[in-house]
C-alpha cells in the first residue's frame, strides 16, 4: 500500500504544492491531473524518491521509502518524461540494459516478445535515434511487459503513442492491477483502464 500525507514540494524558494495526500491499496491506480507547471512530474519524482519532499513522507506498506532504500526501488518501475533511451543503442539493447538495472536478466525471446507486444518487432535492432517519437515511447513502455515491480509510476504514458499502442498500454496496466500491482500516472486526457476505476488527484496551485 502506497500512502502519502500532506506532501509538499518546493522548487527553490517557490512552493509548488502542499497538503497533497492519498492512500493507494494494491490493485488501485491514481490519475494525477492538473494544469501545466502545477507539479505533476515533481509529485511523481517525490513518489519515486528522486527528490525529497519539503514536507510529508511517502510510505510503502507503512515504511518510509527513504528508510526502505533499495527495497523500495525493487518494487518500483518509473518511466519519466524522457524515455531513458540511449539513441546509439537499439531498442533491444536499451531494453536489456533497463531490465538489468531493474534486476532481471531477460532472455532473447522475452526481449523480442516484449518488443513485439508493442509492435516494434521490425525495429528491434535499429538505433533508437532513428525511431519516431511515438516509437521511442513504445520502446520505453516495453519495459512494462516483463516487469514484476509492484508500483508503476508513469509520467504521461499516453503521449505520442497511437491508438493501437494505447490499447496495449491500458491492457498492460489493467493486467498489472489484477496481479495486485498499483499504478500512478499523469495525463491531461481522461484515462480508461478497462475494469478498474482510478482515483483522481487534481493538483491545484
Amino acid at each position, binding site marked *: 500500500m502506497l500512502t502519502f500525507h500532506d506532501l509538499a514540494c518546493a522548487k527553490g524558494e517557490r512552493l509548488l504544492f502542499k497538503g497533497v495526500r492519498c492512500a493507494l491499496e494494491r490493485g488501485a491506480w491514481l490519475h494525477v491531473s492538473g494544469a501545466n507547471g502545477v507539479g505533476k512530474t515533481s509529485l511523481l519524482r517525490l513518489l519515486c524518491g528522486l527528490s525529497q519532499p519539503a514536507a510529508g513522507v511517502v510510505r510503502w506498506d507503512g515504511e518510509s521509502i527513504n528508510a526502505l532504500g533499495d527495497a523500495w526501488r525493487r518494487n*518500483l518501475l518509473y518511466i519519466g518524461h524522457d524515455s*531513458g533511451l540511449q539513441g*546509439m543503442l537499439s531498442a533491444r539493447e536499451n531494453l536489456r540494459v533497463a531490465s538489468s538495472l531493474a534486476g532481471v536478466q531477460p532472455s532473447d525471446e522475452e526481449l523480442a516478445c516484449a518488443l513485439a507486444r508493442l509492435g516494434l518487432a521490425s525495429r528491434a535492432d535499429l538505433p533508437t535515434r532513428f525511431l519516431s517519437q511515438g516509437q521511442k515511447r513504445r520502446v520505453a513502455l516495453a519495459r512494462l511487459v516483463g516487469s514484476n515491480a509492484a508500483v508503476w509510476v508513469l509520467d504521461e504514458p499516453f503521449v505520442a503513442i497511437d491508438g493501437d499502442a494505447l490499447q496495449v498500454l491500458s491492457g498492460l496496466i489493467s493486467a498489472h492491477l489484477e496481479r495486485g500491482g498499483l499504478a500512478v500516472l499523469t495525463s491531461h486526457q481522461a484515462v480508461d483502464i478497462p475494469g478498474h476505476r482510478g482515483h483522481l488527484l487534481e493538483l491545484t496551485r
Partner: protein
Amino acid sequence: MSGELMVFATMLRRDLQIAWRQKSDVLMSLVFFVIVASLFPLAIGPETALLQRIAPGILWVGALLAAVLSLQRMFAGDHADGSLEQMVLSPTPLYVTVAAKTVAHWLVAGLPLVLVGPVLGLQFHLEARSLGLLMVSLLLGTPVLSLVGGVGAALTLGVRGGGVLLALLILPLYVPVLIFGAGAVEADAAGLDPSGHLLLLGAMLVPGAFFAPWATTAALRISLE
C-alpha cells in the same frame, strides 16, 4: 553471477558499445592530446637536451587536459536522455553503475593516452627507459584522473557552462597526479630512484578507486534533485 556483477558487466558493456558507435567523440580528446604534445617540439626547436628535459611535464599536462576534455561526456548524455534517473532508481546500488561507468571512461579515454604517450615521447628524444617509465606513470595516474574527474562531472551536471566550470574545479585536484607522474620520469632522468613517485601514484589510486565512486554517487543524487 550475482546481481551486482551482472549490472556492472551490463553497464560496462553498454558504455563501451556507445563509445564504439561514437568513435569521433573518443578520438577527439586523443587527437587533442597528440596535437598539444606535438606543438611544443615544433615551437621550441630540435634541441635534444631541452626537449628531453621538458617532455615529461608537457606530456603529462597534455594528458591532463585531454582527460578533462573527455570528462563531461561521462554523465551528460545519460542525464539528457533520462537514463541517469533509471540508474539512480535501480535496486542495485548506484555505486556499482558509477564504478562501471568510471572503468568504461578510463578504457575509452585513459588507456589510449597510456598507449599513445610513449609514441609522442619519441618526438622529444626520450630514451627507451624514460618512455617505459612514462607509460607506467600514465598507467597508474590516468585511472585517478577518471576517478576524481567523475566527481566533478557529476557535480557540474546540468550546470550552464559546465565544461569550463568542470575544468576549473577538477584541474587543481589533478595537481598531485601531475607532480608525481611527471616527477617519476624526471627523477629517473636525473639518476634518482623513481619508485617513490610511482608508489605515491599507486597510493592515490587505491583509496581513489574505493572512495571516488562513492563521492560521485552522492554528487549525482544532488544533481538530480
